[in-house]
């Protein structure tokens, strides 16, 4: 989780990732943030985020992203 928070913090230091729960739904992260983020997460956690994973529920909060990462690491 710490590593994820560090990546998010570096990507958008102006966003409160610890408390935000509607990052996509409310448009806090835009499509270009997502493209950059997917690349970084794939590299950092050795996973492959698929287009089907790119739904708001998986990216609306840091916690949801962590869950997705763990799920993909198990596969």
């Amino acid at each position, binding site marked *: 989780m710490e590593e994820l928070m560090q990546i998010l913090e570096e990507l958008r230091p*102006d966003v409160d990732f610890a408390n935000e729960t509607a990052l996509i739904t409310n448009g806090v992260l835009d*499509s270009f943030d997502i*493209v950059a983020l997917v690349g970084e997460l794939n590299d950092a956690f050795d996973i492959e985020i698929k287009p*089907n994973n*790119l739904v708001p529920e998986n990216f609306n909060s840091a916690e949801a992203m962590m869950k997705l990462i763990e799920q993909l690491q198990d596969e």
Partner: protein
Amino acid sequence: METSILNRLDKTAGAYAEKMMFKDEASGITFGEFNRLTKAVGTFIANKVPCGSPVAVMSGRHVLTPACFLGAVRAGCFYAPMDGDMPKARLNQIIGVIKADFMLVDRAHLETAQSLDFQGEIAVFEDICDTAPDDALLAQREATLGCTSPLYVIFTSGSTGVPKGVITSHQSLMCYIDAVAKVLSIDDTDVFGNQSPLDYIAAVRDIYFPISFGASTYIIPKNEFAVPAALFETLNREKITALCWSVAGVELPAKLGAFDIGKPEYLKKLCFSGSVMPCKYLKIWQEHLPDVLYVNQYGPTEATASCTYYVVKEKVTDDTVLPIGKPYDNYKVTLLNEDNTATPAGSTGEICVSGPILALGYYGNAEQTAKSFIQNPLNDNYRELIYKTGDLGHFDEDGVLHFHGRKDRQIKHLGHRIELGEIEETAKKIPGVTDCCALYYKEKATLYLFYTGEAASKQIVLYFRQNMPAFMVPRKLISLDSLPTLPNGKTDMQTLKTYFK
């Protein structure tokens, strides 16, 4: 000859009164209703300001926004769209340049509008959209418009740190729209999927194809671009036939793997512009949609959106570099050398544009206008203004133009045009930044800022987020003890580029 875009709106509003014109996630608006709204808003505005006045418009990503624009035009005025999501400091800069006495907003942006340094009157669209139209007054206002009257002022990055307002006339816009429509064979059966922010130059096609030809436009919700499955679902549900997107927008679905899930079944035409297309992404589009017409466009806002086009006939590969093609109807392209002499056939020179599509200049900035729009140095017989784009190119033996980058430090990032100098001017205003250099790592589409001083990188990003549009915020910040220099004392950018990763 048409005197203004209103000639077209009157025609299509009559011919397609019941047809859907604009649609968004929540609602839709017919040609008839659209036209009624422009007259209501136009009447209200005409009672507030004289004809020929700028009208600032701050309205969201929905069907009423184009009605705000055309409402201003009905009043014999021109509009200056502003993106309410931009930081206040940026909006205040724009207000300082346009100096409007009247601002039209949607209800959602009222609070933002009131918090700005705006001295004039603010009206809310929802409050005035039932104003009874005063046909005599509107006719009087329309009669003041000629084809060279300004239609809108759209702002773009300026290297001195102040945005420049490019003024486009009715004639320029109509010349451009007709030229593109001819290449794309646009008619009333086309349905566009709008990607560009409505306040941005790239949206003029999505707004004026309906007005000119009876086509329709669906305004795609912004967050769907982050969710590839939802994006293609929308294109199919709305039976979208044509897309005029930024290159960055065309890349997105290919990058995010959207074609693994589905494809836009109804799409017939895709035209893209804004930056150089990396063909590894276009290849993915072509593989899944081989029968679509792909058109590469090139051109600056100063020449009304785009000035040349190239129809992609070949199957592209990862390394294909697309030409920027031939000038559109009514556009003339001349290449000039550094010393303003004619560039010999086949050689590279600065791309210069002339014709009725040239902007009227930069709003309230005669000095910058005189510098960029000059008498064609190859013509000493009559008045012929050209715009020097700052882009380099060469014509091949078939008269097809190829692009070779910039002669200055302007870049294209995420479909937007940015002066690296403006990033540096902004960074220098931050306490704790002594010196800095902004560079663009094109391969990774990443904006770098190298700086000296004790400022923390987080502090710098926060300052940019509060003062600049999101696309102008540096993504990578690198703190150095000193910037490397060349023997002549200038910053050594080549050495800085070795930090790219």
